[in-house]
């Protein structure tokens, strides 16, 4: 048998072992290998060989004593010199440290945030093959809806038509349902009706139950841990729930599986999953086969190796083929596939029920954090190139006793790593201290753990981070090192050399860059907080104050007594002291309304296939919320009718006038429009109001006088609700609607939730601005100090000759102020463009005013002048005799 021991391990070992012993060691290993080969065979022998070889590494006696020891001495010396140098120059050391710690702390925190937001849905093992179906709807050539909401037939048809599609899943969210088990009611906040593919399509972790078949049949239900725990009775465990009966929609469901809660970084969040077959059975075949019932969400999984772009054309054709230019659904339908991994970062989809955020802001935050650390590193470079000159003598002596260029460079590198290492250590401490506040700010549960576990592609993030840090350290230490090594040793030791123009320019350029960023950040934070102020204080066109919204009595039957029950409840509650009025409506403010497609207006025979939002309200709604009627009348009690078919009077908002092709309000009142298969009469026009946040344009609204079990009660109160009042209302509610579950929210909170992202950006941008100014000004301060040290004699002489403080100030300012001014001339326009772009996120926003950017610039100039003044005053107080005497 011809077999040789593994070569690689002996090659490594040869490098490590003492050369005098190596031959005997290798020989012995070889001999053992040969005997193992005979006894155990090739495989085992090779394994033994590797283990035996590795075991040698344990013994230092057998290892080579390399030159490292000598390097260690040198290394220790570098560290000692760095420490001494830092001690001697406390100002520079602390400027650098403060900047670095601030920059690194902010970056570490922001990295957590960015990694969390970009890590959504990666727990699905096929995440990179899963796509969300997007459906854009056009009417008369105009985009009227951009979203993920679409028809129940889309997924199945795509799977049938395209061989590239491996599987699909479709779903329909179902909010706030009450389940009953042993006569106890339980609220299911987010249920999703999902088809039988869902559980194997995504990778949600089962606790118990058969996933592949869990939702195959009618009346099957899968629940999550946290909902399951609510259901548990004494001596019952989660796993016991599988097979149990639970009632929902008055149907007996059987729990087929219990899942762990969806991970926090899942864009789909749910408490329970309901089988799609149940939905088909209760809602009819249309839930399966309709081409114009648009309430469903679809995901498709492509086969391995198929690119989504390969399907682009086919999918475009799909929309044309099945929807025949609007004949089928009233609109032209276009379809796209969006990668699952991009879903969370896209908040532009209308009617999205997934957890989404504005991805651009996520990246912007990261970019800003990185800019801040750049500003800190620029300080490091600037102050170090300055000091490199002061330290030139040290370097000169090192060189004259034989230090190589590489050694000088490695000394500077060591120092950089040393200082940055301390900064990194301190920032990690800072992160631990600041974490709770940061989590409060972001509303997320983040920690440094996420940096340790995250991956980019298949590379651990930590390795990338380390690599980029080392690279940055190399860059920032290289320049000062390069400067000092360039000079001839003779010149240095004679003291007859000067900074050349190149360095001066580099330094100026860097200062300009720093201040440029500072200007942009100051302007940004001023404009952002102005925008937030504007949004919060804007007249919304309705009165939101002190409104409590109760969920509707969805379990109560809609029968002939229903109107009366509702009216009695409204009266009872409005008679309570502290309550002004009560009204019911299907949607409140701050949540997206439903839409009516295919509206026809009597104003113009061409005006058909129009789309408008609608609200179902009672006749008091407009009055309670103080929405003004501009023409015609408000809704009346007599507009309601128990028979929905007989309801025919409606009110529209001003925005709907344009849509329905009426020139003015007076023209519309009394006219008719057609939708839902009948003719309606417009009885009034109301003033526009901001049903959604100021991000959104005011859209056309049709207000229909309906009562329904799902309509919530808006209770308008005289002042903030007291605990006592709430519990009284609860009493009335429980008495009037026995089977229902009392729950409420405050309208202002709900409405302001639309601004969560904006508030967050507002707060974070303030922190960023503060830090960038702080670090940039510290850097400027350092440069001023350095210049003053050089100019001590000059200043002394000038003072002797009678220069005033002002003259000295001008002398120093002319070095630095032009840089700040250049930074402003570059940064000002840049921030103008950037902010104008940011403004387009809002439908309603004050223009970006140049005045504010100028103000921001003035602030920066003022801070810079004060910094220079502060130092100059200190120096000018010195007795010129001292400064002239100094060597």
């Amino acid at each position, binding site marked *: 048998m011809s077999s040789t021991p593994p070569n690689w391990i002996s090659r490594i070992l040869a490098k490590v072992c003492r050369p005098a012993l190596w031959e005997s060691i290798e020989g012995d*290993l*070889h*001999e053992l290998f*040969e005997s193992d080969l005979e006894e155990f065979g090739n495989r085992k022998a090779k394994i033994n060989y590797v283990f*035996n070889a590795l*075991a040698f590494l344990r013994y230092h*006696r057998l290892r080579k004593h390399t030159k490292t020891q000598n390097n260690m001495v040198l290394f220790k010396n570098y560290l000692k010199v760095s420490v001494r140098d830092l001690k001697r120059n406390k100002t520079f050391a602390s400027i650098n440290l403060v900047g670095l710690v601030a920059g690194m702390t902010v970056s570490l925190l922001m990295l957590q945030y960015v990694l969390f937001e970009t890590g959504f849905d990666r727990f699905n093992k096929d995440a990179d093959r899963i796509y969300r179906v997007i459906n854009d709807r056009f009417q008369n050539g105009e985009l009227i809806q951009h979203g993920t909401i679409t028809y129940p037939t889309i997924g199945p048809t795509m799977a049938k038509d395209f061989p590239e599609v491996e599987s699909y899943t479709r779903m329909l969210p179902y909010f706030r349902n009450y389940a009953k088990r042993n006569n106890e009611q339980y609220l299911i906040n987010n249920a999703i009706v999902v088809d039988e593919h869902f559980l194997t399509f995504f990778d949600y972790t089962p606790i118990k139950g058969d996933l592949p078949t869990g939702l195959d049949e009618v009346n099957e239900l899968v629940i999550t841990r946290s909902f399951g725990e609510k259901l548990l009775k004494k001596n019952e465990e989660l796993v016991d729930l599988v097979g149990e009966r639970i009632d929902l929609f008055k149907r007996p469901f059987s729990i087929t599986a219990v899942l762990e809660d969806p991970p926090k970084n899942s864009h789909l969040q749910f408490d329970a999953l309901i089988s799609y077959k149940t939905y088909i059975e209760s809602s009819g075949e249309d839930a399966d086969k309709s081409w114009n019932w648009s309430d469903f969400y679809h995901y498709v999984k492509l086969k391995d190796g198929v690119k989504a772009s390969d399907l682009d054309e086919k999918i475009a054709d799909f929309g044309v083929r099945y929807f025949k230019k609007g004949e089928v659904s009233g609109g032209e339908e276009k379809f796209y596939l969006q990668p699952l991994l991009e879903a969370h970062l896209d908040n532009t989809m209308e009617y999205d029920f997934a957890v989404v955020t504005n991805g651009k802001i996520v990246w912007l935050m990261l970019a800003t954090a990185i800019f801040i650390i750049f500003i800190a590193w620029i300080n490091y470079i600037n102050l170090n190139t300055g000091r490199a000159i002061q330290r030139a003598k040290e370097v000169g002596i090192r060189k004259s006793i034989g230090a190589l260029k590489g050694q000088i460079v490695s000394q500077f590198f060591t120092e950089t790593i040393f200082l940055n290492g301390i900064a990194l250590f301190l920032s990690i401490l800072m992160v631990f201290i600041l974490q709770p506040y940061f989590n409060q700010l972001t509303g997320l549960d983040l920690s440094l753990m996420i940096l340790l576990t995250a991956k980019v592609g298949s590379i651990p993030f930590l390795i990338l981070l380390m690599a980029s840090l080392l690279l940055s350290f190399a860059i920032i230490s290289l320049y000062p090192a390069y400067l000092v090594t360039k000079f001839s040793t003779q010149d240095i030791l004679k003291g007859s050399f000067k900074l050349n123009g190149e360095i001066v320019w580099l330094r100026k350029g860097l200062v300009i860059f720093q201040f440029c960023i500072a200007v942009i950040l100051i302007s940004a934070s001023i404009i952002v907080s102005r925008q937030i102020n504007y949004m919060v204080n804007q007249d919304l066109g309705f009165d939101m104050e002190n409104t409590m919204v109760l969920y509707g009595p969805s379990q109560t039957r809609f029968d002939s007594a229903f109107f009366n029950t509702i009216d009695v409840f409204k009266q009872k509650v409005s008679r309570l002291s502290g309550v002004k009025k009560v009204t019911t409506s299907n949607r409140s403010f701050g949540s997206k309304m439903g839409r009516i497609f295919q509206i026809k207006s009597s104003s113009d025979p061409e005006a058909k296939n129009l789309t408008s939002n609608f609200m179902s309200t009672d006749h008091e709604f407009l009055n309670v919320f103080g929405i003004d009627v501009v023409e015609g009348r408000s809704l009346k009690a007599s507009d309601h009718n128990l028979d929905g078919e007989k309801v025919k009077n409606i009110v529209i908002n001003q925005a709907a006038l344009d849509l329905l092709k009426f020139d003015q309000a007076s023209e519309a009142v009394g006219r008719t429009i057609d939708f839902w298969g009948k003719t309606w009469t417009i009885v009034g026009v109301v003033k526009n109001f901001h049903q959604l946040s100021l991000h959104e344009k005011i859209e056309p609204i049709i207000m229909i006088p309906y009562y329904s079990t799902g309509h919530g009660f808006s209770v308008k109160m005289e002042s903030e609700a007291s605990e006592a009042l709430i519990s009284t209302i609860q009493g009335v509610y429980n008495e009037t609607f026995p089977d229902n579950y009392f729950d409420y929210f405050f309208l202002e909170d709900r409405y302001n939730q639309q601004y969560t992202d904006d508030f967050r950006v507002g707060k974070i941008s303030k922190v960023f601005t503060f830090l960038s100014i702080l670090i940039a000004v510290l850097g400027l301060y350092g440069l001023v100090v350095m210049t003053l040290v050089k100019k001590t004699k000059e200043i002394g002489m000038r003072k002797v000759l009678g220069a005033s403080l002002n003259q000295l100030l001008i002398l120093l300012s002319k070095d630095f102020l032009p840089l700040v001014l250049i930074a402003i001339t570059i940064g000002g326009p840049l921030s103008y463009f950037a902010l104008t772009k940011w403004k387009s996120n809002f439908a309603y926003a004050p223009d970006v005013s140049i005045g504010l950017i100028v103000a921001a610039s003035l602030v920066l100039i003022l801070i810079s002048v004060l910094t220079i003044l502060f130092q100059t005053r200190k120096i000018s107080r010195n007795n010129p005799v001292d400064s002239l005497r100094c060597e």
Partner: protein
Amino acid sequence: MKGTHLGELEEIALLVVANLFDNAYGVAIKQEIEDKCNRSITISTVHNVLQRLNEKNFLESRYSEPTKERGGKRKLLFRVTKSGQAALKTSKSLRDNLWSGIPKVAFE
């Protein structure tokens, strides 16, 4: 000069080297220890002990002539030095001394 104290494994190794006279090298010593003392030992540990004894001057070493076995590598052969012998004798007499001092009753 390092300490002259002899550890247990060191003592065994020294004795084995003496036993194997003129053919005492890594693998042979390893096998001898495994056979005679009924304990398993890795080749790296053997090398480490030998090196330690070498540093204490209890062993001297030389390379053998190259052979075709062992991938053509020479063996490093060990022999006990005078001070090695002395250390072994000291160790033995120390033990004998202690043995003879045990009263008969103690082991009954």
